[in-house]
């Protein structure tokens, strides 16, 4: 499965969501390479738990760099069905492959129509370039 940033949907707070055709009800969630670059020097990530309910636009975890803690917001609502536990010990995956090995959680969506409210790549890219 190859995920390219052009095919993802984004929150303006830099989280992405991807829905594969194999599993149409499940969104894979991560943070963008722009976010990783801005954060720099990542040291910790507080992950959600499997079974936890998440709400679109609400915090589901935290990412911490040497100097700052940033909340991560869920792009979709639903139940967490997968968590990338190993990521905490391999935060450099986020630098190398934020859209693949850097995935954070999988969510069984309660309302897939929320995806349409997310930003598409050109809009998100434009926002990053002008921030």
């Amino acid at each position: 499965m190859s995920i390219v940033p052009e095919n993802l949907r984004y929150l303006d707070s830099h989280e992405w969501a991807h829905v594969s055709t194999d599993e149409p009800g499940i969104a894979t969630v991560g943070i963008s390479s722009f976010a990783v670059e801005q954060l720099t020097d990542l040291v910790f990530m507080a992950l959600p738990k499997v079974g936890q309910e998440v709400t679109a636009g609400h915090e589901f975890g935290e990412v911490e760099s040497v100097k700052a803690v940033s909340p991560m917001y869920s792009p979709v609502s639903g139940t967490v069905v997968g968590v990338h536990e190993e990521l905490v010990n391999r935060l450099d995956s986020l630098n190398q492959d934020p859209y693949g090995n850097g995935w954070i959680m999988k969510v069984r969506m309660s309302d897939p129509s929320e995806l349409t409210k997310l930003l598409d790549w050109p809009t998100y890219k434009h926002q990053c370039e002008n921030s």
Partner: protein
Amino acid sequence: MDAPLQTTPLVDWHKANGARLVDFAGYSMPVQYTGIVAEHQATRTAAGVFDISHMGRLRFDGPRADQLLDHLLTRRVLDMQTGQVRYSLMCNEEGGVLDDVLVSCLESPSGKVYFLLVVNASNRAKIVRWLQPHLADFPDVEFHDVTDSTAMIAVQGPKALEICKPLLPASVFSLGYYKAKVTEQMSKPCIVSRTGYTGEDGFELIVKAEDACRVWENIMMAGRAHGIAAVGLGARDTLRLEAGMPLYGHELNESIDPYQAGLSFACSLKDRQFIGSDALAKKSTDQGLLKRVGIVLTGRRAAREGSELLDQDNRVVGAVTSGSFSPTLDKPIAMAYLPSEVSQPGTVLDVDIRGTRVSATVTVLPFYKRP
């Protein structure tokens, strides 16, 4: 408070070299260029160059300048020799800390002895206001705030002196720690002092604002082969935290006294009177309730300013004043004020990090001492 941000004479260099600029004490300052950890490591292993032009530089001329400063500072000034630098505090009548400063006794090329006070950027306006009535009492002391007409650059790290060799006159390399000299950099005036805020050896340079870019570029060029890096305020903070140095507004404020802060060395009470000396004399015999300590946390998560510390009985015993991940120790560290019953090194406490309890151990400061 909506005044436009001030910039230092080096702002264009920072912008052209990828710095992220943030508002710090009214100045637009570089917080990082390539990344805090890389800049931190460069300073510990090679050298870092820092734009610290935001710090306040106050000059006092006249034969009684030493008397005025002796009246204002917790360290003795009257016995200072030319070329000497002292770390000192400025206190209010109650012994609360108004600022922590470096005071230098310097001699100009024409042979005039004067004093220079380097104050925190965040306190400069307050200190200049505090000085006014005292300046009125010493009408023969000439006072100039030279912050805007000068720039200040720190070169810190094990290779700092070697890098500066081709740039500065030979005489500055024999300067001892906390010594300073008025000299020249490529025939332009330059004050060199063997001081710093990183726990490393090095120099702090004060030059005219219009010479700042040239001096900075010269240092970068001379340091390139040695692995020098431009370092922002982010790594400046992690470096000073590892070195156990207090930062005003975090470990120091007007309600903290120097003894709690572990700065008794900066108070010379014997045979002298200065503002706050009576209050400090009382506090010095008080087996102070609170003490500034270091904290090392388990795990990877750092406690930030305000994180509460809890004892084994779940009672809140203090709060973190500064906290960060330590690049040198590869673990989270913090400073805090704790009462004596839990301030002994080795005491195990819990830190509340936004709702999660993390185990932490009280430790002696500093966290890092240069080899």
